[in-house]
């Protein structure tokens, strides 16, 4: 490979041809601040519009300063990254950005982890010399995401994520000057756009222009209400990421402390969504075997491949962009909704209380889960199965709000019966985990044999699209896995073209799966954060005494006492759902001769 030698801040650097100054500097430990630039190499995400100009450097022999994120190294180049001229330019750029950014840091929910705030602080900005007009936009509140364009710095990270990685095409830059903003087609509300609420735009926003909807107050109100029994369910990915907000290394499992914190917050029962994930596997695994059996017997009507339905961002993407394939989705509800349905029937009956006096709060790594919880089909007489869904960062805020010293908490244990789970359910939180869990159970149900090796290594990893053939005792079952909606779109195109080789497909809307969800503490472009979270889940799985969903004794008891058979009538009533055609015809054009 051709390499180039150059000097950055008196250090000799040798890099492959084509390397930018920014990356060359990084390779020798020189940090150049960036604002619009972001790269997640494993996910092929790179936002590099050269828009903000914070990363400018001085190059000997060049008249003007150069943006280091764009400028490629050349042989013999001499670069200086913090001369007075560079620092002066950076400060001016920052002041200009701040002159059109509301100074609301103290009341902003990104206070303390805002990238703009950090760089302004590092640059020592004490005064903004530029005063004048500012943008004024109305705030757009969808069920999951809040869009406040007054805070937008036009870095375009969200637009790149929404279009290039997710291929949702909801967000775009519109208008010019003070009217310029990231918006939707025809500047509708996000709720009226093609947005699937995956929340990845929020994950990459350096400021607070895009943020999650806040539901902390109603949760606090419920906890303070003596007439309510409040129960928590926690999704698997939360325990790998929550610690980040309390100073733990990325990927530290804080399951026990999280349970204790929830108890201290006043939850009457602390349960685990993992229990419902085991239940999902029972239903979805059984459904897969039903469909597969019919398919192998030559039934042309049966919809194959079966697509997983745990991820509400993905479900919403199918309903909006490919409604003709919605019957391929498993009818099994997501673990969040299965938990809600069981809690407000089986568990409420066990306690002998009315479901209206039971408040179910889910703690999710996800913003789309808020939307999912609000879907009308997931409620009984106006009472939702899941009352409130809060995301990981919101839980961290609640813990700080209640003055809980997280690091000093003892390790607590989940309550029974809805807190018991197997290793299979833990890995739901990472890409490939749901289908691996389904294979563990479906294999044993189908072959009636014991599965010796429960680790399906071939289904793991961070490749955008993966495929594997799992041998079900002579029957090869072909499995496809995608994470990120752009990758999922490729699998969907194959189904539409009739070239899909798969029997079952797992999709997670967020890159990396739930560990990279829109509600998680921010990765800020550090890929290893996601890798470590995934590794933590596989570690927890390996440490569990039970690793197959159907071996969960409380699941077995639930079927025995209450549900009957998997996919039976009672299970169908409580644990399955249907999907809706949400393909939106924007502007509805009809071919008539009405106007000329």
């Amino acid at each position: 490979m051709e390499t180039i030698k150059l000097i950055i801040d008196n250090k000799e650097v040798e890099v492959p041809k084509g390397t930018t100054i920014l990356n060359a500097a990084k390779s020798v430990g020189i940090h150049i601040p960036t604002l619009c630039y972001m790269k997640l190499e494993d996910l092929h995400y790179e936002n590099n519009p050269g828009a903000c100009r914070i990363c400018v450097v001085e190059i000997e022999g060049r008249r003007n300063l150069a943006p280091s994120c764009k400028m490629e190294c050349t042989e013999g180049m001499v670069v200086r990254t913090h001369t007075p001229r560079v620092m002066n330019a950076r400060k001016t750029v920052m002041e200009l950005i701040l002159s059109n950014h509301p100074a609301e840091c103290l009341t902003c929910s990104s206070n303390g982890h805002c990238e703009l705030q950090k760089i302004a602080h590092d640059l020592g900005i004490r005064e903004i010399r530029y005063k004048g007009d500012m943008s004024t936009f109305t705030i757009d509140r969808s069920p999951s995401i809040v869009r406040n364009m007054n805070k937008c710095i036009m870095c375009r990270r969200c637009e790149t994520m929404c279009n290039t990685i997710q291929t949702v095409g909801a967000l775009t830059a519109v208008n010019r000057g003070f009217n310029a903003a990231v918006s939707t087609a025809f500047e509708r509300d996000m709720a009226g756009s093609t947005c699937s609420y995956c929340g990845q735009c929020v994950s990459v926003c350096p400021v607070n222009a895009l943020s999650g909807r806040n539901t902390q107050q109603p949760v606090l109100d419920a906890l303070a209400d003596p007439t309510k029994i409040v129960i928590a369910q926690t999704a698997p990915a939360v325990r790998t990421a929550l610690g980040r907000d309390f100073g733990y290394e990325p990927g530290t499992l804080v399951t026990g402390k999280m349970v204790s914190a929830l108890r201290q917050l006043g939850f009457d029962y602390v349960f685990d969504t993992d229990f419902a994930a085991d239940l999902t596997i029972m239903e979805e695994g059984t459904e897969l075997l039903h469909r597969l059996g019919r398919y192998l017997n030559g039934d042309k009507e049966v919809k194959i491949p079966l697509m997983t339905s745990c991820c509400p961002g993905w479900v919403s993407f199918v309903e909006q962009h490919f409604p003709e394939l919605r019957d391929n989705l498993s009818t099994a509800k997501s673990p969040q909704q299965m938990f809600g349905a069981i809690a407000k029937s089986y568990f409420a009956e066990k306690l002998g209380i009315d479901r209206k006096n039971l408040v179910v709060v889910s703690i999710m790594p996800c913003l789309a889960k808020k939307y999912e919880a609000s879907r009308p089909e997931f409620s009984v007489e106006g009472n939702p199965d899941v009352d409130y869904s809060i995301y990981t960062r919101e839980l961290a805020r609640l813990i700080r709000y209640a003055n809980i010293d997280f690091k000093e908490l003892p390790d607590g244990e989940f309550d029974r019966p809805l807190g018991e789970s197997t290793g299979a359910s833990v890995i739901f939180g990472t890409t490939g985990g749901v289908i691996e869990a389904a294979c563990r159970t479906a294999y044993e149900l189908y072959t009636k044999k014991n599965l010796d090796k429960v680790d399906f290594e071939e289904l793991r990893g961070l490749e955008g699209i993966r495929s594997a053939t799992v041998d079900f005792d002579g029957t090869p079952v072909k499995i496809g896995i995608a994470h990120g909606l752009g990758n999922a779109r490729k699998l969907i195109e194959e189904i539409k073209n009739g070239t899909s080789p798969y029997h079952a497909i797992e999709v997670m809307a967020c890159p990396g799966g739930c560990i990279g969800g829109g509600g998680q503490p921010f990765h800020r472009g550090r890929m290893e954060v996601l890798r470590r979270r995934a590794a933590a889940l596989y570690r927890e799985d390996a440490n569990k005494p039970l690793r197959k969903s159907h071996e969960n004794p409380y699941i077995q008891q639930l079927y025995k006492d209450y549900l009957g058979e998997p996919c039976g009538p009672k299970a169908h009533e409580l644990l399955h759902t249907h999907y809706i055609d949400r393909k939106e015809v924007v502007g509805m054009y009809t071919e008539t001769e009405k106007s000329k």
Partner: protein
Amino acid sequence: MNEIHLPKTKVAELHAICAERNNDPGELINILHAAQGLFGYLPPEVQQVIATELNIPVSRVYGVVTFYSFFTMTPKGKYPISVCLGTACYVRGAEKVLEEMQRQLEIKVGETTPDGLFSLDCLRCVGACGLAPVVMIGGKVYGRVTPEKVRDILSDYYLKEQ
């Protein structure tokens, strides 16, 4: 959003405009240019048809339409008025002419009168600086326009419509 129905023949022409350029997203600006020539403006329905033909999100089409000031989502009037605000016209009082136009028509720049007769825009230099200030209505050029003349100019068109 108002429901606007596009005439069938024009939709067919729009499909042809896209097809001529191989439905290539890289041709988006040229296609929008031609589409605006066809419809006079770019309503959401037209943008949606183009997005579908080019297989790109309609948000992207909308982003381009709102970025370039040439593109408009407002239908132009039967008699589109352009007031030149180029340097020569400006120093000879074009701004006062524009103000008078807005007062007489009761619309702002970029808008169209409710009866659909007039739309008002400004532009920069039509190359007739010797006649400054210049106003164009449709293809017709009016030179040395003063605010006092605006009413007479407009009344010719009102008379024509009666």
